[in-house]
């Protein structure tokens, strides 16, 4: 495991270099923003709406004292969504969706000698293949998470509309109460770190594949597992560093 971590660091040393041709890099970056970000918009929106709705219902269910105002539901939904659900849960979902895609794409390129072809041409293949994905995720994932926050809050609002648990008025007052902009900064910082972890780990797992289809599948699984574990670990570390 230590030698694998060493290999990961060694590969990242080669990945984070100036691209061979900036014009080609810009083109790839736009493509990856589309592939990794825009194509994840649907799943992000759906999960976020339901996440916000569930948090709203659960909070309403737990408020059984008349001394606690119902506006606390909106406040709880906002805090939960911004601090944890959007940055962490959506990143975990993206680790599954994007991570497996990256590992299998690069892994297939490895086993079909496409990476060797790049190397033969004198191109830094790790930089060419992984760097645009990492930078695209760093740029687009915070946007996805902000959108997710919006959909999460909308989910809670829909509960207010379609149930009698609390009113939309109470919910909106709660959402607006005691807002600290720092929580958004905290969420974005976490998202950027998670984006780096997902893309670099998945890129590494794909890049070092040896064998055939079975190994590509295994690499894809490893990419998701390790990305998820690292997200959970770094979630704790970053929370301790940024909120304590």
């Amino acid at each position, binding site marked *: 495991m230590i030698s694998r971590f060493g290999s990961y660091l060694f590969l990242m040393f080669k990945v984070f270099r100036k691209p*061979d*041709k900036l014009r*080609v890099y810009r083109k790839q970056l736009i493509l990856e923003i589309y592939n990794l970000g825009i194509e994840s918009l649907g799943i992000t929106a759906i999960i976020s709406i339901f996440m916000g709705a569930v948090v709203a219902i659960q909070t309403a269910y737990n408020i059984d004292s008349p001394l606690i105002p119902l506006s606390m539901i909106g406040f709880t939904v906002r805090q939960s969504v911004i601090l944890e659900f959007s940055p962490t849960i959506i990143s975990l979902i993206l680790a599954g969706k994007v991570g497996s895609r990256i590992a299998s794409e690069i892994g*297939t*390129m490895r086993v*079909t*000698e*496409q990476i*060797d*072809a790049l*190397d*033969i*041409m*004198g*191109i*830094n293949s790790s930089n060419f293949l992984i760097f645009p994905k990492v930078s695209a995720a760093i740029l687009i994932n915070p946007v996805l998470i902000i959108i997710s926050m919006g959909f999460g809050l909308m989910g809670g609002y829909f509960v207010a509309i379609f149930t009698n648990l609390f009113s939309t008025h109470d919910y909106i007052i709660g959402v607006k109460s005691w807002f600290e902009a720092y929580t958004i900064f905290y969420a974005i910082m976490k998202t950027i770190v998670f984006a780096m972890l997902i893309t670099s780990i998945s890129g590494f797992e794909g890049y070092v594949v040896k064998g055939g289809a079975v190994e590509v599948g295994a690499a894809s699984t490893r990419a998701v597992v390790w990305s998820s574990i690292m997200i959970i670990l770094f979630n704790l570390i970053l929370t301790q560093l940024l909120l304590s």
Partner: protein
Amino acid sequence: MIEAKNISKSFGDNLVLKNVSVKFEKGKSNLIIGQSGSGKTVLMKCLIGLFEVDKGNIYFDDRDFSQMSFNERKNIRKELGMLFQGGALFDSMTVEDNIMFPLTMYTDQTMEEKKERVNFCLDWVNLENANRLYPAELSGGMIKRVAIARAISMNPQYLFCDEPNSGLDPQTAGVIDELIQRLTQEFQMTTVVNTHDMNSVIKIGDTISFIYKGELWWEGDKEHIMDTDNKELNDFVFATELTKRLK
């Protein structure tokens, strides 16, 4: 000319190449032959720098490739084309983009100039009007021809072909052999072909290096390979019913 001097390569305790010294001449199709597992693919991968040699030197026209850094090797790599066994075309790109790729990375040509070069290369491999196709839409023979077109797009001095005929019917294999031969002679390239196809050996083997258990066992050409008394080479050459009958 490409020259390997006393190169050795091992993987763990397994010594795959043992002190191999071999020369590949300009304007000739230089064939490396040998059984599966003999070390011929490792030799080729060492020559092109995909594997680092443990010992020895590799010279591309007196330039010591084995001692160069990644960036220093770039200049030689720009002069080098490679045809992979499976073609190794980029799946996400069209035929045109595949051939254009090295030009985009290494030249400042305009799109018009690049397209002209792409069409020239496609004409060469008899694949006019295939520009917009994706690799998944091509047959095995077409993939090999596009791979050749990509390999020659930068007008290389050195061409490496790894099992160019594997998976092809004899007729298509013959077409690929002819293409390699024509390219080598017309552009005076140093061509190294890794094969175990005896048809290729007889047809284009200007020089032949037989690798046996990681050692250079025999050197010669297509005129002499059929009447050598080297036992291991004879076992390899006359392994099929067809070649046995020819003998």
